[in-house]
């Protein structure tokens, strides 16, 4: 079931996460780590200047992606994308960088996932016997960041739910997800339960339940997503 294009879905997910951060940053400075894919797009929608981006390859204060003439192969983010510096940025080695993450200094990480289940357990690092072999910093990020925000499309390309009852793929972390943002809904893990807080304007609760394997509760304060 596809009510909006993949491109639009991704943009919407990134926007919703950015909205959340912009609001949090009204109260306090935020330090955020963005994963590869949709998470990287979040940076394009953040407007609050009280938000600082960390890249686990050793930088705090990551700026926008470098334009063609600016590219420096030794100034990249964790997705190997050439980026720029911001005023007050700093560089450090990988143990300090993951010290920030593991030590609970990073307010939130935004990552993609293959599957997230009802208990907030995440599978996002490997599909067995595939062509990929790598864990990167995913396990450190989900266990270390204060909040783990999953930014993923609601279903796979084949239309299978990604919000499942129980992860079947090798897991990245047990019960670590705090918020799941898809183009169809925004879910918070509260008291070990998935609670729907926002729903897409295009669909009904019935339809959302059909395309979601995981059980979820509906917030008494359910809102329709604020999307343009």
């Amino acid at each position, binding site marked *: 079931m596809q009510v909006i294009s993949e491109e639009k879905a991704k943009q919407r997910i990134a926007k919703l996460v950015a909205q959340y951060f912009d609001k949090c940053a009204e109260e306090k400075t935020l330090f955020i780590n963005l994963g590869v894919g949709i998470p990287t797009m979040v940076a394009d929608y953040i407007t609050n200047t009280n938000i600082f981006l960390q*890249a*686990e*390859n*050793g*930088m705090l204060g990551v700026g926008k992606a470098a334009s063609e003439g600016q590219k*420096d*192969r*030794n*100034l*990249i*983010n*964790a997705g*190997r994308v050439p980026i720029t*510096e911001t005023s007050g940025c700093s*560089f*450090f*080695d*990988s*143990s300090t*960088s*993951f*010290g920030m*993450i*593991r030590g609970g200094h990073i307010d939130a990480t935004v990552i993609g996932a293959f599957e997230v289940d009802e208990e907030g357990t995440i599978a996002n690092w490997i599909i067995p*016997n*595939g*062509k*990929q*072999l*790598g*864990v*990167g*910093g*995913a*396990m*450190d990020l989900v*266990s*270390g960041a204060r909040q783990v925000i999953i930014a993923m499309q609601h279903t796979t390309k084949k239309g299978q739910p990604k919000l499942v009852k129980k992860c079947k793929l*090798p*897991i*990245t*972390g*047990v019960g670590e997800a705090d918020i799941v943002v898809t183009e169809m809904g925004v879910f918070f893990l509260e008291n070990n339960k998935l609670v729907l807080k926002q729903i897409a304007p295009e669909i009904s609760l019935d339809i959302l339940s059909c395309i979601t394997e995981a059980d979820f509760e509906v917030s008494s304060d359910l809102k329709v997503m604020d999307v343009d």
Partner: protein
Amino acid sequence: MKKLKSIQEAINMIKPGSSIMVGSFGLAGYPEKLIEALAESELKDLTIISNDLGSPGIGLGKLLRNNQIKALIGNYYNWNPEVAMANNEGKIKVTLVPQGTFAEAIRAAGVGIPAFFTPTSAGTDLAQGKEIKIFNERTYIMEESIKADVALIRAYKADELGNLVYYKTARNFNPLMAMAANLVIAEVDEIVPTGTLDPECIVTPHIFVDVITAKEGI
């Protein structure tokens, strides 16, 4: 000035079958000329300890194509799909360690700590067979330090003693590996007179560096 050697002299110090740490994150901050010379050498059966393996046929990827690698210890090989292929075919043995654990384990070797506890990977396949321990009601995994025979690192500038400074995100694992190997060889862009690097800004003090080799040759 005895630390200063040519790329070839430096590579000649490495024995076949060595475990070799290589600084890098993707293609940022890797010792290009040293890897090139290593790829042209007869050295085989190497265990390469690095974040990733560059791209297919580029950087560390060359060593895989040359069949010089016996084993890999690292964390992210998705940028070079030839690694998964070689692993699936049983040609090499790959040990995956989460990136933060990998960084910390290398530092640990450098600072004389044989093992430490981390929450990372608890409950996952990568924690299988590892000792666990509960602190404050949370499960932690015991991870052992990672050391090597040789470290090939990349720095921006060295002074004549071997003090090093790095360049932006090319720093990554390099300062950690400088502490964790028996023989530490640094490839640098520039060698400057001792006394010209700010003592407050030196990242790797010269005590950790055995050999300096300049990218452009000396």
